C-alpha cells in the first residue's frame, strides 16, 4: 500500500458500492474509479475485493447486472441497485452513521 492511501475497511466496501450505484448503473471499473475519485484518491479498492463483493451483492439480490456499452462504445457489465438494494443502502447508511458517532465518542470522550 502506498503511503497516504487508505485500505477500504472490512465491511464498508458493500456500503461504498451501494452508495456509488444509487446515482445510476455502473460497471466494475467505473465503480472502482468513482470511489477513488470521490475520496480524492485516498480510498483504494482492490480488484480482488471489488469483484467478489459485486458477485456477493448480486447473489443477495441487492444489485442486478446487465451487459451494456460504455460511452466509449466498449462492452461492459453494468450493475444497478434493486429496490431491495435501496432499502439495504438506507440500513447500512444509518448503521454507518451510528458507528462513526460511537467511534468518535469513544476516541475523544466528552467531559
Amino acid at each position, binding site marked *: 500500500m502506498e503511503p497516504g492511501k487508505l485500505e477500504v475497511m472490512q465491511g464498508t466496501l458493500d456500503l461504498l458500492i451501494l452508495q456509488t450505484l444509487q446515482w445510476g448503473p455502473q*460497471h*466494475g*471499473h*467505473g465503480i472502482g474509479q468513482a470511489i477513488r475519485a470521490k475520496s480524492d484518491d485516498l480510498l483504494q479498492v*482492490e*480488484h*480482488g*475485493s471489488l*469483484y*467478489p463483493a*459485486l*458477485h*456477493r451483492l448480486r*447473489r443477495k439480490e441487492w444489485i442486478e447486472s446487465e451487459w451494456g456499452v*460504455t460511452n*466509449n462504445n*466498449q*462492452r*461492459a*457489465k453494468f450493475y444497478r441497485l434493486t429496490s431491495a438494494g435501496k432499502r439495504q443502502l438506507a440500513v447500512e447508511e444509518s448503521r454507518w452513521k451510528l458507528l462513526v458517532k460511537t467511534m468518535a465518542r469513544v476516541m475523544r470522550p466528552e467531559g
Partner: protein
Amino acid sequence: MTWIRWWRRRRLEEDDLSEELRAHVAIEARQRVEAGQDPLEAERAARRAFGNATQIGEAARETWGWAGVERFFDDARFGLRMLRKTPAWTAVICGMLALGIGLSTAIFSLVYGVLLQPLPYPQPDRIVALWSSAPSHGYAYFNVNAVEWFHWRAESKSLEDVALTRPIVNFNLTGDGSPQRLQGARSTWNLPQVLGVKPLLGRVSTEEEDLRDAKVAILSYGLWERQFGGDAGVLGRRIQLNGEPFEVIGVMPPEYRYPTSAIELWTPLYIPKDEVREGLNYQYISVARMQPGISVARAQSEITGIMRRMMQQYPQEYQYTGNDFGALVEPLAASDAAAVRSALYVLMASAGCLLLIGCMNLGILLLARGNARAREITVRVALGASAGRVRRQMLAELFPVGLAGAAGGVLLAWWMLRLLLPFLPANTPRVDSIGLQGPVLAFAVIASLAVVFLAGILPARVASSSQLVQALHQQSRSVAGGGTRHALVVAQIAVTIVVLFSGALFARSLGALLKVNPGLSAPNLLTMHLAVTRAKYREDAQVSAYYDRLLQRIRQVPGVTAAGIVNRLPLSGIAQTGPVEFDDKPGMPKFDTDWRSATPGYIEAMGIPLLRGRVFTARDGVTSPAVGLIDEHLARRVFGSADPVGRRFRLWAGSAGVGPWTEIVGVVGHVLNDSLEKDARPQVYWLEAQRTQDRGALVVKTAGRPESFTQAVVEQIRAEDPDQTVYDVRSMEQWVARNLESRDLTAGLVGLFGVSSLILACLGLYGVVSYSAGLRLREFGIRMALGARPAKVRGMVLGHAAQLAVLGSAVGLLLAWPVGAAIKSLLFGVGRADAVSLIIAPALLIAVALVAGLGPARRAARTDPAVTLRAE
C-alpha cells in the same frame, strides 16, 4: 436432467465472469491510451494494475457457493492422476484399506442384522419381553408361568397386552407325504395383536378357542409355501398333527417369526387348570406391547411392584425362592439376542481396533509420501497457495482412495459373510436378515472415508506447514513428521497388543473348555430325537411299552452295544429343574436339582459311571416300586460319606404337593447338563416309565462310526411305527461341538483380527524403520568408513525396531488391563490378567517386529561408504 442444466448455467456464468474481467482491463487500457500512453504499453500497464486475474476470478467464483465442492472434485481428479503414477503404492493402500473395511463391514452386518435392525413389527420399540428373574439364585432370567401372566395382564397399566407362548412344541405332521416333525408353538390368541401383525390369509385364533383347546392351526408363510405350495385353498383344510386333525384357519406373513424363525406353526395355547399354580410350571415365554409413550424402565418398575404384591399374597409358594424373585422387562430385540450380544460387541471392538491400526498405518504411509512431495508442495505454497488450500487439496486427493477402499471392502465383506454365516452359533437370532443392506453399505463408505481423512489430517498439516526455504534447500530430503511417525507406530503396536491379548484370552478360554470333562463318553454315540404321538399312545404305560419295544429292536442291530432314551440330552441348555427333599433329613433345605427321565440302558449308553448301587434295569417298570438315581454331587451334599442307596427322595412343590417317595437305587457320575461352561445343579434321574415324557432323545452306543448306524436305527424305528418322526440326528461328538460353536467363532475371529493387526502394525514398523534407516545411510557410511563393522550397523537399525516394539508393547499392556476387565464375563477358565496371554502377546509382537526390522537392518549393513558419501 437437472444437472445438465446446472452444468450449462455454470459454464455460462464462468464465461460471463472472464468476459467481465477482460472488459475491465480493456476499459482501463482505453483510458490510458486516451491519456496519451502507447497502446501496447497501456495494455500491459492495465493488466499489471488489475492484478492476478485468476485469483480475482476464483475469489468471485467463491461467492457463488458451489466453488468449494467443485474445487474438491478437481482436487480429487488430480489425486487420481497422482495415484495412477504410483500404482504399487496405490495398490498397497487400497488393499490395506479394503481389508480393514471388509472385515469390519462383515462384522457390522452381523451386528446390524442381529442387534440393530428394528424388528419387522409396527412400533417395534414398544414390544418387550418379560422374564421371571431370581438373580441371587443364579437365574438372571428364566421362563414365566401362567400365574404371572394372569397377574400382569390383569394389573398392568403400562402394558397394552401380554401374550404367552409355549415355544417348543413338536408336531408330527402326517398324511401329506412322509411324516415330518415340525417345530411349532402354542400361543395365546392375542400374540398377533401384541406383535401388530395381521394374517396374510384367513384369521387368527380367538380367546374362546384357547379356552376349549380347539384343534385349529395357523401356518407360517414358509410352511405354507413349502408344504402347501402357497395355495389359498389350504384354509379350512384338515391336517394331521400328532395323529389328530387340526383345521388350518390362517397363514401369517413372512415377517411373523415369533419366537424364532424356526417356528412353522401356531396352535391355541390351552392352559390346564392344574397347571395354574404359583411358583410352578415355568414353561412359557411372554411378550408384551407397552402403551404408547411408556418407557421400559416405567414398565419394569410397575411389573416389579406387581411381583412384590404377588409374593405377599402367596408367601407359602414363594418361600423357596425367597424375596429375591421378580420379573425382568427388556426390549424384545435385545432379549432374544442376549446369548450372542456380548460376543458380537467384542468382535465389533476388534474390528474397530483393526480399522484404527489401518488408519494409523495409512497415516504413516501418507507422511512418507508427503515428504516425497515436499518440493511440489513448497512450489505450490510459493505460488500463493495458502496452508488451508494445501491441506484441503491433500485431503481431496485421498477421496478416490476412500471410495476404492469402500468398494473393495464391500466385495470382501460379501465374500466373508458367505464364509461366516454357516458358522454362526445356532442360537443367533435373525440370521436370515444378515446381509449387505443399505445401512451396512453406508457404514462401509462412511468408515472408509473417515479412515482416509483421519489418516490424511496429520500428514496434510505437516505438509502444509513445511518451511519453504528449508524444503527447497534440503533437496529431496525432509525429515518433517519424524516424531509423529514414531508416535503412530508406537500407538499401532499398543492397539495390536490389546487385540492380540484379547485373542489369546479367547483362545485360552476355548482351550480350557475343550479340556472340560462333561462326565460322559461321547465317542461312538449316536443321538436322535423322537416326539411321541400321544393321540396314539394315550396312557403313560403305552408310551413306556412303546419305548421298550423300540429299544429292543435297536439293541438287535449288529454293532449296537447299548441304547436308551432320556427326555433331554446332556449339554442341551434347557432343563426341567426343581427342588427335591430327602426322607430322613427333614431339617435339610430343599435341593434345587436337574430332573431327567431315563429308560434302562441310558446310563450305560451315555457312558455315565455308576459309583454305587445299580442302574435301572428291565425289572423296573410302571408297576414296580418307584426307583431313582442321584448323582455324586447330590450324594455328597446330602449324605456325606454315608451310602445313599436305599434312602428315599421326592420332588417338592410347596402347597402344590409333593411327588411319590422314590427309592435311591444307585449313585452315578455328575454330568454337565446345561453346557460345558455352566454347571449349576446336581441331578436326579427318574425312571421314564414312572415319570413319562412326550419327547425323548434316543442314544445308541455303536461299535463303529455312529453316523453309519443312522439308517439301520431309523429303519428299526419305522418298522415299529411307520408314522414316527425322527429329528436332530447327530453324533454325540457333534452335539458336544455345538456347545463350542460360539467360542470357536469368537476365538477364531478375534484371532484373525489379532493376526491382521499384527501384520498391519509390523508393516507400519517396517516402513518407519526402513525410512529412518534410509535417512541415516550417510551416517552409516561414515561410521563404516571409520571402521564400524556391519554387525554394529545392523544392530543399530534392529535396536530402533526393538525400541519401538518394546515401547508400544508397554503402552499396550497398560491398555490391556481395562480391556481384560471389560471382557471378563466372556472368559472361561482364564483370568482377566492371564499371565500366559500377557506374555504371549508382546513376545509374539516383538518377535515379528524384529523380523520386520531385519530387512532394513541388512540393507543398512550392506551400505557401501564410497557410494553413500558420494551420493550427496
